[in-house]
């Protein structure tokens, strides 16, 4: 095929791809409302699509000159444009799926405000995605940002506000409690934005592992991934408190894993749950949650039990537990990660990134009991006031978690429902409590200021 024909073909392919995406975005925006920063992103995609379509037509015109060098350049530009839009494609679809009614909107708005108040990611905003998987995730942005600096995508691209793309499972679209796990993804976002785990960091792990492990590059990468998970956990606990840890314990996957062996087993991407919970507990104790009402929960007891499991009991990933060659390699990597100074380093990094946070314990101690009382009377807790101030969302979230995990004391006695023992009644009432708390967060967001 002559270069000219190839360009025409490529132009048509690119045009179809981009115009189709533009139509999908426009019809979604017309029919639904989106959280503020999701809408901002989708609007950016619409405008950039228009610009890209103009760009394609323009490239086609240039190629008609027949100049071979020009044609080669145009060909490359079109390839790059298609690649960029393929990358955007992966972001657009999950954002479109997450319209306001399918996500815990007040919680998302609060997280955006909360994160943007931290100096290290000042004014960052959250774009929410709905994922088909049962996992929460943070959509890394580094590669996308790089392509957005190329023409024609750069016309409407602004470096500020920094957008963090966080995904939640579609089954959890209305939950308040489980979605506290989004704070772990916030941790990954902070790590990416602030370049915590730099190439130098990776090289340093590599050099430390070199003597013990022959394929030290792979091992260093794995250990760094584990460190990233611990870092994200610590960020989450420092920002939102035990609500994150209890959501983590209650997540369906972990409940499935409850046989002891599973809690002790490392994964390729994650350290063992026992280690992760131990590190979270350390932060919770530093923040004096052990002196609060939270420590009376049976889940707190369970957390202490899991965290107390000895490091020597940890197991390598399940596929390598009987592998005579690889098992010792994994064990070396696990021991490396579990060294006190390494863990301390991760703690310190996470603390430094969140040094200007609002301490969740202080908010919980100020409002916790009152919020529980309001919830036990079936009332939205924004009604509970201290010095004329509504309770802060962090206090609402942790108090709700305490209220739910302690069996919704009081509320069950006053609600006239038939068949109280039925699981459907329990789930219905839990959902009501979550909605009341979500409403209280919404009230806080629209408070006079």
């Amino acid at each position, binding site marked *: 095929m002559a270069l000219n024909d190839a360009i025409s073909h490529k132009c048509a392919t690119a045009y179809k791809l981009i115009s189709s995406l533009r139509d999908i975005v426009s019809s979604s925006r017309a029919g639904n409302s989106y959280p503020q920063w999701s809408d901002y992103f989708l609007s950016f995609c619409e405008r950039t699509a228009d610009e890209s379509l103009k760009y394609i037509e323009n490239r086609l015109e240039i190629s008609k000159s027949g100049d071979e060098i020009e044609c080669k350049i145009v060909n490359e530009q079109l390839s790059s444009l298609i690649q960029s839009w393929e990358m955007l494609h992966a972001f657009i679809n999950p954002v479109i799926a997450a319209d306001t009614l399918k996500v815990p909107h007040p919680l998302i708005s609060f997280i955006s405000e909360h994160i943007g108040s931290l100096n290290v990611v000042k004014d960052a905003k959250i774009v929410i995605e709905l994922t088909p998987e049962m996992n929460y995730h943070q959509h890394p942005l580094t590669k996308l940002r790089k392509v957005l600096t190329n023409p024609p995508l750069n016309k409407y691209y602004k470096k500020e506000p920094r957008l963090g793309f966080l995904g939640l499972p579609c089954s959890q679209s209305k939950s308040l409690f489980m979605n506290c796990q989004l704070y772990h993804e916030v941790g990954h976002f902070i790590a990416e934005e602030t370049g915590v785990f730099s190439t130098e960091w990776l090289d340093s792990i590599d050099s430390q592992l070199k003597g013990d492990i022959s394929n030290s590059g792979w091992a260093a990468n794995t250990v760094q991934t584990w460190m990233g998970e611990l870092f994200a956990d610590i960020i989450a606990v420092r920002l939102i408190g035990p609500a994150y840890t209890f959501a983590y314990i209650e997540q369906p996957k972990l409940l499935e894993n409850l046989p002891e062996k599973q809690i002790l087993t490392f994964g390729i991407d994650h350290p063992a749950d026992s280690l992760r919970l131990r590190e979270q507990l350390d932060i919770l104790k530093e923040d004096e949650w052990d002196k609060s009402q939270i420590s009376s929960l049976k889940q707190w007891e369970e957390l202490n039990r899991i965290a107390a499991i000895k490091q020597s009991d940890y197991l390598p990933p399940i596929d390598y537990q009987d592998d005579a060659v690889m098992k010792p390699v994994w064990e070396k990597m696990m021991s490396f990660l579990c060294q006190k100074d390494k863990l301390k380093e991760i703690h310190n990094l996470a603390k430094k990134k969140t040094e200007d946070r609002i301490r969740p314990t202080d908010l919980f101690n100020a409002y916790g009991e009152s919020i529980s009382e309001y919830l036990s009377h*079936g009332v939205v807790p924004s009604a509970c006031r201290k010095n004329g101030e509504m309770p802060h969302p962090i206090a609402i979230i942790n108090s709700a978690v305490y209220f739910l995990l302690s069996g919704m004391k009081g509320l069950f006695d006053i*609600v006239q429902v038939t068949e109280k023992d039925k699981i459907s009644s329990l789930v219905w009432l839990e959902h009501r409590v979550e*909605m*009341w708390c979500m409403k209280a967060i919404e009230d806080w967001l629209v408070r006079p200021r």
Partner: protein
Amino acid sequence: MKKEDLKNSGYSGVITQDKIKDLLEQPIKDVHSLVITPRPDKIDSDSVDLRLGSYFFVPRSHRSPCFIPGITIPQYLYHEQYIPFGSYLVLPAHYTVLGATLEFIKLPSDVSGEILTKSSLARNFITIETAPWIHPLYRGCLTLEIANVSNTPVILYPGVKIAQLILLKTSHDTIIDKKDKIEGTYVGPVRPEPSQLDKPEKALKSLGIKPENVFYPADEYLNDEVYRNHITMLLERWKEP
């Protein structure tokens, strides 16, 4: 009149500003406490203004020939819509939507409430409520049946004042054990909630109407052979293995 006197007097009537403020300050564990949240910045002499919330149920074109109580799935009739503060909902002429107040309320055990359209809105032929009565101890945001009965489309901004709440002291307390309770069909809603009606068989049972004597809109077509065959075929398809 002091609060204690009011409680015990058997006096019944509209509650005024000072009393409303007093009731708002009562601790939540007191069954005579009143909650309005977010707290209004101003209370009128004998009423409290309530604002429009952000969630709506908007009618949609649907497959059902009509609404059949207890059978038609409400989601077939309405779709939920969220309008962020600052944006607006267009209410075409002669159109109705379900909305809710921004304020969540909890009434005392000896106070009933009535919700009325704000008069300035009513003058633009907007009505917000056809079932305005609120029972003592009710809690939740109030569902509004918003209708534009004018000939002109109107836009509605969430967050603007739309209703006024009148509080009325009942002649006697509705509970005798002073214990809080939550009952009723709609428990603590924070968004508009569609109706939960009984099926006609259940609703008419108290009148001695037998199920075989209750008719449905499509029953008349059963005389038609084609329709009858269609129903038979559907029943066959749904038969359990």
